[in-house]
């Protein structure tokens, strides 16, 4: 029982970690590229790395924080323009090859020993040289804090059954959310004439939101997590990171609901039709590439807030993980990127920790559990694309999935 609780605790900690939030922001950007516009951007890690470098190097040189953020975003902006001009007029797979190459070039340049004074070479930039500027902004105070403050230890002396009850409520909420979500989707489906459920759209959405909130509270009630209020790896970083995730989601929601968002989908579905309607397809693609890239840069900055700027940590792998997360959650959906990223990182930790706990060392060493978890990730990506390309939240009909 203790082992299970330890594993679950590790999973929850990973799920709410700043790193997960950072990748979620980058995946939100990728969703704009791939999900809504149909651009095969395989260089999202390059945008992240540029954002991280611009941000961290500026802070090291005592440039104020807001300006440092702008510099990071500016670099990504320029990068998107440079990438887009030669490739956006070409076929999709050229964009894929060029973006992945360009991201690698940035990583190679970052690793250059001749730039050691600026980028720290292959070693990267130590977190303590740039983090204080952000950490000192915290108004959360000192000491530790537990989420949720009122948890199972406050009821009946922290008995096991209270905890199990919390877990049960969480599971029930998840199941209920899924049911409500499916009904909502069916009701919103224009091809079905008569709504077969008694759930009105607004009521259903409110119900789903309440269920999610109650479920989350039940989760943290049963599995409270404690971190320092401020500090390098505390609640302050987490709060900012997840607030940014929420804001990014909101921005993308507003963007894709706008007429401009319909343009994006139009380009994805049929470029030639858009052209014949007199739209400037190149400009639309470029705008999408730039805006999604800015989210990537923002993700990169959040990523290095709680770790170090390490060029190899933001390599091709991160791009591939982002695609897995996006496809898991559902491309061309609003909440898919966040859900996918959280599930992706949680599932990997769950696999790794379970293998560590229950597979004997003689069969699988600690090192091998890590690799095993990545093998599973790779196979999962393959199976996902083959059997459920629309992911968890996606709509198969909307996603024709060809570029």
């Amino acid at each position, binding site marked *: 029982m203790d082992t299970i609780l330890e594993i679950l605790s590790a999973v929850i900690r990973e799920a709410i970690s700043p790193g997960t939030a950072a990748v979620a922001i980058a995946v939100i950007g990728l969703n704009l590229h791939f999900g809504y516009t149909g651009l*095969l951007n395989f260089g999202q890690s390059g945008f992240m790395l540029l954002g991280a470098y611009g941000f961290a190097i500026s802070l090291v040189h005592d440039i104020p924080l807001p300006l440092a953020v702008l510099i990071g975003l500016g670099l990504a902006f320029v990068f998107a323009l440079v990438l887009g*001009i*030669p*490739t956006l*007029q*070409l*076929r*999709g*797979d*050229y964009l*894929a*090859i*060029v973006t*992945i*190459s*360009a991201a*690698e*070039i940035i990583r*190679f*340049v970052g*690793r*250059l*020993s*001749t730039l050691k004074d600026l980028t720290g070479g292959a070693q990267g930039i130590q977190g303590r040289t740039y983090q204080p500027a952000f950490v000192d902004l915290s108004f959360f105070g000192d000491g530790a804090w537990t989420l949720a403050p009122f948890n199972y230890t406050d009821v009946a002396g922290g008995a096991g059954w209270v905890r199990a009850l919390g877990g049960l409520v969480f599971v029930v909420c998840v199941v209920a959310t899924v049911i409500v979500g499916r009904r909502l989707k069916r009701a919103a489906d224009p091809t079905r004439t008569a709504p077969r459920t008694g759930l009105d759209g607004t009521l259903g959405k409110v119900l789903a939101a309440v269920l999610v909130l109650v479920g989350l509270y039940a989760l943290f009630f049963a599995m409270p997590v404690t971190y320092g209020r401020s500090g390098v790896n505390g609640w302050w970083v987490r709060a900012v990171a997840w607030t940014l995730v929420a804001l990014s989601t909101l921005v993308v929601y507003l963007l894709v609901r706008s007429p401009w968002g319909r343009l994006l989908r139009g380009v994805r579905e049929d*470029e*030639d039709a858009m*052209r014949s309607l007199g739209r400037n*397809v190149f400009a639309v693609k470029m705008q999408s590439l730039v805006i999604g890239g800015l989210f990537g840069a923002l993700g990169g900055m959040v990523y290095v807030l709680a770790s170090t700027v390490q060029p190899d940590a933001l390599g091709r*792998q991160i791009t*591939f993980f982002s*695609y*897995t997360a996006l*496809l898991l959650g559902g491309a061309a959906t609003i909440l898919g990127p966040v859900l996918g990223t959280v599930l992706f990182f949680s599932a990997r930790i769950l696999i790794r920790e379970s293998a560590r706990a229950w597979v004997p060392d003689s069969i699988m060493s600690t090192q*091998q559990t890590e*690799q*095993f978890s*990545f*093998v599973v*990730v*790779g*196979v*999962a*990506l*393959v199976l*996902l*694309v*083959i059997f459920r*390309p629309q992911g968890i939240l996606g709509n198969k009909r909307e996603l*024709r*999935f*060809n*570029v």
Partner: protein
Amino acid sequence: MKSRHHVRTAGARAVRKGLVGTMLLGLLLPLLLLVGGSSASAATLCLPKPDETGCISGTVGSRSDPVAGVDVILRDAQGADVETVTTEEDGKFSFTVTEAGDYFVVLDDETLPDGLEQQPPRAAIAGPDGSVKVTAKLGSAVSPIVEVRDQDYDAGGESFSDQIAQSVVNGLRLGLLLALASLGLSLIYGTTGLSNFSHAELVTLGGMVAYGLVNLAGMNLWLGIVATTILCAGVGYVQDRLLWQPLRRRGLGLTQLMIVTIGLALAAQYAYQYFVGASLQKVVVRDFGTTSFGPVTLTNLSFLAMGVAIVAIALVGFVLVKTRIGQATRAVSDNPALAAASGIDVDKIIRLVWTAAAGLAGLAGVLYALVISNGIRWDTGMQILLLLFAAVTLGGLGTAFGAFVGSIIIGLVVELAGPLGAPGDLKYAVALAILIVLLLVRPQGILGRAERVG
């Protein structure tokens, strides 16, 4: 190049923590013998005392090849000579200082044996006049890195034109091996339209299988190369049979298929790490020697690898141009529907292409592990994947001969980038940058046909 000069390292590895203490007993005796000795300039051993004295000591020459009788001069931060000692038979010297701070250590050229000179220290520890900067602390011993080398050693080792000649040959070698792998990548793209991101893992697989057969199982190298190629071709066949053909039947889009290859690549890389580990594994342990032609020196294995690559590439070219199967393959590349309509079994051709492509990639993997990366590791293939894509795109996506030309160009660019002034770490980046520039000017590649897209 390395063998032509002669660098002796002194002091670099000398004083480790705790070593001083353990050496103490053995050193006391010679110390006693030295007391009352007349030579004030002879090296006396130094034992650091906390807050009183610090030691600067080291060795001139290496432990196995020490240089005796050299005057070592210690200067203070202002550049004034503080003390001069002469190295012992074992090449050791030692200074005792009573103040912490920066000091400079330099060898007296006059006293160095003929033909030797002090090697200029690297920038981080360089002091004035070729001296070595060292920061002494009270209560501890520090060891300046004082190195000597042959006087006729010159930094480049060889003239610029010789370097270029060597790089061109190295570039051809790399280009030929890249061509082996990229031919398959290009054929797959041509016949199915798929950008196979897991192609590099087939290259790695080749090296891994060869490591298993030749190094672990002790198979003869030639036999091992042939067996690896056949095994990898088998993997290609099975892959198409079990994965790609069913997916084609399912009607999966190309983007989906591309992401499937990424998942496959990810799984394969970590599977290699899981089973073989994360370190570099040698395919052959034996040294096959080197041969020189004028300024160009290559290992004998390299000649062999280039020969094998040329034969294999020529064979593929011959099959593509002269045989019916080759014609059918090119027909499928051109227009699968039309090819099917004219009675070509498209599925069979694609199966054949996958088999051949995997075999070629496996062969490239063995040769690459033999002559370029000097072993195989889980990410060996991954590191050249983008070079392969660059080569294929450069030559024109989907044209086999374009892939060959592109590979040779990429190989030359990568190897020539260094001598022509790009920092060493950037040589791959230069190749990728060329790809991006080319797409601006001639998007269809060197040998590709212009085709309106969008």
